[in-house]
């Protein structure tokens, strides 16, 4: 990386932290610190919602996923706009009217303390680990680029986020997210332009799309119904709907974003605007990955995209064999490139028969490279059984470092860091909110009746929230150490979320719509549902998107059964928050 790249990256990081500290100053009570005094307008809310969901994992892993598996991951987001409509119409007015700080406060008002505490605890565990993955992704980039110790890199990146999030709370999070999204759009927009310009002379965007399509990389929609297929239209629409309903309706990292709205109308519009722009944004990121695939059809890719593992092979016991595999791969890539050119030529000439033969030839050449790549992965595993054998997350990074010009590399890396910081800051703010409101304020705090006691309590609550932010930052950094043992990061986060999202969603759906079901019934149902979801994960090959459906319907069904048997406590409990 050049000096200019380093300057762009460092200036961006310092600028974000300084801007966050500056904009977040002046919060003296919990309303200001956790909810930005409820003064945000809808464009800021939309950007904040998008920036919270789109982490560095999104920008690192998604193009790699398109490179390896095509664009079918897009379908995961098909249920999202429908969830936005449902939440805008139902959850937003309830949360606003009750003036809650967290989604889980509502559960105590509707059910009881144990249900609120169960949901808040599930959130803390899941989101604490997810925050670790959010920090880990860009830390991985630095460790690969510079050979830094991964633990120290995690620590440095996590600390930058903690500084402005602990300092300024929700205000700092919201305002920095606007700046971060600007950097993200600029960085990835520029990368896409450069990728298209990097295609060989004579290969147009249409040619690239034809080649990508024939190789199955533009498979954005698949209507076949298969429960074991991870991404198809039905799992995306139904499973994705439940995921989005749960994530945006019950996950404090998102609920906290639209609770900052100055009115119901602002919060609603913020959610609905997100429902309109999310799918096109994901399409653009996936398309970028598909174009990287086409680029590497015409320019020989490395046999394995993780340069750390490749360097270890070059200096290890199997160096000679590995170099042999690399030579074979280079030769096979040359054949593949020739086949790709034949396909472009046949398509341009409109020769249907030649095009069919060219597609067949290109697919055979691609299969040949895959066999050689599998040999390389087997050697890597033989050299070190604990080595990372999934390189999906390195595909885009490898392209950026190897083929983008000076300055643009720094800009794209800055965009990746901005994405990581935007998600992590919102997650830490939400973890802090839940810890201070649902545990400290609920179980520990005692406010006296003397003059000035309320103001003192407010300052103490802000102090506790800052402490909680720092604690969860440290927890996330610690958990990031284990992330290197997972496969595709974005899927790991989604699978992790799906193990608890369905259950939490079920609790909230019962709370919103089944008024005759009481706290004990829903609490028992939630425990049963969680066992069912974990059993699905351990003992079946059902796609993880369906766990949300299983968890949610189990809570609703079992709580209804328990209530009908007369074992649920019927009356909602009015309680302190």
């Amino acid at each position, binding site marked *: 990386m050049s000096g200019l790249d380093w300057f762009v990256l460092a200036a961006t990081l310092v600028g974000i932290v300084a801007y966050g500290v500056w904009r977040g100053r002046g919060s003296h009570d919990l309303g200001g610190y956790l909810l930005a005094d409820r003064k945000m*307008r*809808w464009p800021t809310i939309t950007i904040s919602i998008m920036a919270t969901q789109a982490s560095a994992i999104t920008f690192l892993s998604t193009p790699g996923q398109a490179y390896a598996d095509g664009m079918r991951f*897009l379908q995961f987001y*098909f249920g999202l*706009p*429908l969830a*936005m*409509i449902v939440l*805008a*119409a139902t959850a937003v*007015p309830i949360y606003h009217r009750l003036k809650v700080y967290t989604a889980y406060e509502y559960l105590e008002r509707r059910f009881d303390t144990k249900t609120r505490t169960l949901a808040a605890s599930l959130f803390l565990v899941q989101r604490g680990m997810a925050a670790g993955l959010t920090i880990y992704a860009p830390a991985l980039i630095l460790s690969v680029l510079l050979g830094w110790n991964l633990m120290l890199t995690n620590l440095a990146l996590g600390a930058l986020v903690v500084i402005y999030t602990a300092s300024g709370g929700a205000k700092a999070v919201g305002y920095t997210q606007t700046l971060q999204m600007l950097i993200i759009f600029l960085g990835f927009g520029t990368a896409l332009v450069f990728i298209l310009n990097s295609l060989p002379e004579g290969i147009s965007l249409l040619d690239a*799309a*034809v080649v*990508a*399509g*024939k190789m199955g990389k*533009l*498979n*954005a*929609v*698949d*209507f076949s119904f298969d429960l074991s297929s991870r991404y198809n*239209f039905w799992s995306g629409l139904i499973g994705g709907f439940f995921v989005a309903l749960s994530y945006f309706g019950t996950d404090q990292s998102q609920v906290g974003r639209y609770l900052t709205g100055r*009115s*119901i*109308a*602002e919060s*609603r*519009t913020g959610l*609905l605007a997100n*429902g*309109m722009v999310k*799918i*096109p944004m994901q*399409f653009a990121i996936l398309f970028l990955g598909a174009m990287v695939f086409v680029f590497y059809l015409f320019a020989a890719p490395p046999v394995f995209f993780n340069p750390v593992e490749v360097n270890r092979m070059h200096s290890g016991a199997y160096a000679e064999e590995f170099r042999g595999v690399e030579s074979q791969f280079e030769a096979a890539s040359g054949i593949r490139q020739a086949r790709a050119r034949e396909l472009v030529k046949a398509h341009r000439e409109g020769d249907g028969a030649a095009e069919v033969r060219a597609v067949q030839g290109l697919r055979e050449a691609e299969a040949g490279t895959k066999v050689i790549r599998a040999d390389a992965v087997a050697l890597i595993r033989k050299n070190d059984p604990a080595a990372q054998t999934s390189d999906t997350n390195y595909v885009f990074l490898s392209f950026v470092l190897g083929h983008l010009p000076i300055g643009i590399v720094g800009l794209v890396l800055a965009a990746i860091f901005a994405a990581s910081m935007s998600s992590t800051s919102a997650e830490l703010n939400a973890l802090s909110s839940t810890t201070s409101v649902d545990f400290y304020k609920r179980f520990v705090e005692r406010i006296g009746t003397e003059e000035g006691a309320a103001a003192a309590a407010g300052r103490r609550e802000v102090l506790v929230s800052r402490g909680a932010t720092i604690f969860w930052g440290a927890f996330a950094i610690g958990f990031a150490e284990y992330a290197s043992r997972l496969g595709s990061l974005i899927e790991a986060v989604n699978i992790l979320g799906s193990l608890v999202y369905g259950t939490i969603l079920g609790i909230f759906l019962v709370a919103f719509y089944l008024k005759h079901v009481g706290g004990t019934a829903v609490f028992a149902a939630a425990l049963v549902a969680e066992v069912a979801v974990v059993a699905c994960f351990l003992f079946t090959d059902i796609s993880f998107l369906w766990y949300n459906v299983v968890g949610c319907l189990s809570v609703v069904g079992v709580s209804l059964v328990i209530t009908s048997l007369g074992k649920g406590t019927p009356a909602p409990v009015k309680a302190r928050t």
Partner: protein
Amino acid sequence: MSDLDERPPFRGSWPLLYAIVFLNLVALIALFTWFTHAFE
């Protein structure tokens, strides 16, 4: 003030806004279905 009394930040009603988001989804799915088949 009821929820429907609180108007969207720009012209129109909430049901209209919900319909726009839904129709946008339908249009995107149709567009991406065409896209998939066009380059298959």
